[in-house]
């Protein structure tokens, strides 16, 4: 571990900075990704301490605005903000004025009146984070917009891979399943490109997006030469009735389900959750030592801490947060 130095200047809350958002992986450079992963590592080591709370974002307000159901992402963002001592306000569409037909713009304007520092938004429609960014002064973090982007998921996934396999450059990842409806896959493709991970997409013909610039195959055996098999959830809630993307979930599981028989020993398996056990992933795989699903959730916390910190300060955490932890 690095030497911890106590620098008084670093204890000041971050000053006014140009507004930074995390809306799409496409907005990031390779350096940005490396910096975020580095910040996450620093926070992870801080979380080993007995007192896990850092004062870094004390007095800041983080609003979580969730228009879609979510367990891990919303809890992860809320806890990340709390670990950094920010005030948090979590709004879910059910039970709010969204139920009364309030537009996204008006909800954003209302929340904007509280001067939040960060608005974390999940929304079923592409471009919702951009709209909120346009009408508020807050830094916007996209927690998933429609089928477009889920940048913090992709970042926590590369963080997990790096921690588990020791490197990123040159690794092979196979993404399996419902790519068409997956914002996770879209963010992952972009982040893998940035960090030098080779990626291929495997799934049923109608669930591989036409025109996607990526290596795509319907052959499930193509997962065998990957270092990591990344299993996507069959997103039945996004499939219109009668669209017939696959004849049945039974046939999908039969042909594309990730089973122990289809894996090599030692191949790591990831899944963004929630899992449909017995559909896209065999329960024996889900419970095996090579499944990194809970590691992903733990990574999610420190990566989201890093993202909140990064959008608010615009710089590497370095010794700063650790110094802050020291006085906390």
């Amino acid at each position, binding site marked *: 571990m690095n030497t911890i130095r106590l620098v008084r200047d670093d204890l000041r809350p971050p000053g006014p900075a140009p507004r930074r958002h995390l809306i799409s992986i496409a907005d990031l450079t390779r350096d940005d990704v490396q910096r975020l992963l580095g910040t996450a590592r620093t926070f992870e080591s801080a979380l080993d301490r007995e007192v896990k709370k850092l004062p870094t974002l004390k007095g800041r307000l983080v609003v979580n605005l969730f228009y879609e159901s979510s367990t891990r992402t919303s809890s992860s963002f809320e806890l990340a903000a709390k670990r950094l001592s920010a005030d948090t306000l979590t709004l879910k569409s059910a039970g709010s004025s969204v139920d009364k037909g309030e*537009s996204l*713009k008006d909800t954003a304007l209302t929340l904007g009146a509280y001067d939040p520092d960060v608005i974390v938004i999940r929304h079923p*429609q*592409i471009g919702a984070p951009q709209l909120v960014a346009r009408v508020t002064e807050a830094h916007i973090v996209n927690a998933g917009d429609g089928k477009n982007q889920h940048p913090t998921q992709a970042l926590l996934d590369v963080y997990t891979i790096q921690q588990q396999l020791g490197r990123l450059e040159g690794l092979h990842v196979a993404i399996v399943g419902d790519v068409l409806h997956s914002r996770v896959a*879209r963010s992952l493709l972009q982040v893998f490109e940035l960090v030098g991970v080779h990626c291929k997409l495997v799934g049923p013909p109608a669930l591989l997006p036409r025109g996607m610039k990526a290596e795509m195959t319907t052959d499930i055996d193509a997962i065998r030469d990957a270092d990591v098999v990344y299993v996507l959830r069959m997103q039945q809630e996004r499939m*219109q009735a009668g669209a017939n993307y696959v004849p049945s979930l039974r046939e999908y599981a039969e042909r594309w389900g990730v089973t122990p028989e289809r894996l090599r020993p030692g191949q790591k398996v990831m899944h963004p959750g929630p899992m449909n056990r017995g559909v896209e992933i065999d329960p024996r795989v889900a419970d095996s030592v090579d499944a990194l699903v809970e590691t992903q959730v733990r990574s999610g916390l420190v990566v989201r801490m890093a993202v909140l910190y990064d959008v608010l300060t615009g710089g590497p955490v370095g010794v700063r947060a650790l110094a802050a932890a020291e006085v906390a």
Partner: protein
Amino acid sequence: MLFIKERPGENVVVRGARVLDPAEGIDATLDVRIDGGTIAAIGEGLDTNEHRVVDGQGLVLTPAFVDPHVHLRTPGREDEETIASGTAAAAAGGYCAILAMPNTDPVVDSAATLGALVETARREAQVAVGFLAAISRGQRGEELTEMAELADAGAVAFSDDGVPVASAGLMRRALQYSSFAGRKLALHCEERSLSRDGHVHEGTVAAELGFTGYPSVAESVMVERDLALAAYEGQPIHLLHLSSAESVTALRRARAAGIAATAEVTPHHLVLTDEAVRSLDANLKMNPPLRSEDDRAALIEALRDGSIECIATDHAPHALHEKDVPFEAAPFGVTGLETAFAVLYTHIVKPGVLPLETVIERMSAGAARVYGLERPRVAVGTRANLALLDLDAEWEVDAQAFRSRSRNSWLLGAQLTGQVAMTIAGGAVAFER
């Protein structure tokens, strides 16, 4: 079939403009004198006869434009557009005539609804306006409208624009009966089982952004079906807002086989591709969607050789708050009347993609020909329907300056070259800058 607020014909002399009417074979610097709204003389050094003199030096005087595809939102959504505001916007765009689609609330599917529109147009219309009536009642695709009565009441043609006629059987009956009514069908070709919930052309952009794709084949299979039915019944059809190369191929084949099929294309499909949608600007959402570069090239080529006879704006006004939402939640449609000429001049004529003559022909005579309307002409003895164009004007598209009640233009803030300086419609000055 066209209606306008009657005004006295004006006495005007346009002095020294480049007079350009491709169909009349005129391209020369001349004076044009209008006596009481009718073109009385074309020549050099004409007497002004104490008429109002408009200095046309450095400007181009052409036949005014005809837009075969406009949504005036009346009745039902007068907050978005009225006949007065829509025709004022048309005048500002150089148009002397526009045709309004019937997908209003209520739908124009009865002589009573159409009659009320005709009355309003006679009171309000700044340029001539014609109305299409629906093919099916309520545009539900189940029962035919009373086409003969609607034709008598002034319907220019029939269309369920906005929704396709899903049933091939109903389409066949519509073709049969419209021939009796003496009016053409104008068809919105979309196979909904292929386009369902699609927002963006199915291709790399939709795949990367995660939009549900609206494939070009959703249009072309319906174009093929309707061409086959038109051939079988021996009836003419007009294809609305073509967007794909496959549709163009089908259209060419049908025309070569002698089928009386015509088609239109919008300025946005001629100028933009789906790449533009990466901005997530809801003012780039329209049906059919912006397509690939190959599609755009095919449309331009078809416009050049006349396979596509005319340019239509598909001017589709929407309230600000309805477009100020995430892309997927926004309604389809963009405005276009006030920017059509300038955007085509800037992006098609100026870079040398198509000659000015072709664009003028397709914006004016082409549309008139499709619906059997009188072609605006620079010719002695005809009612003055003229556009005076300043090809050197550089301007920025300003939302505040629109005559339309809506401002859902994809060109907000854009720099354009070429501007309409004056429009004379039905013998009177309908717009001047």
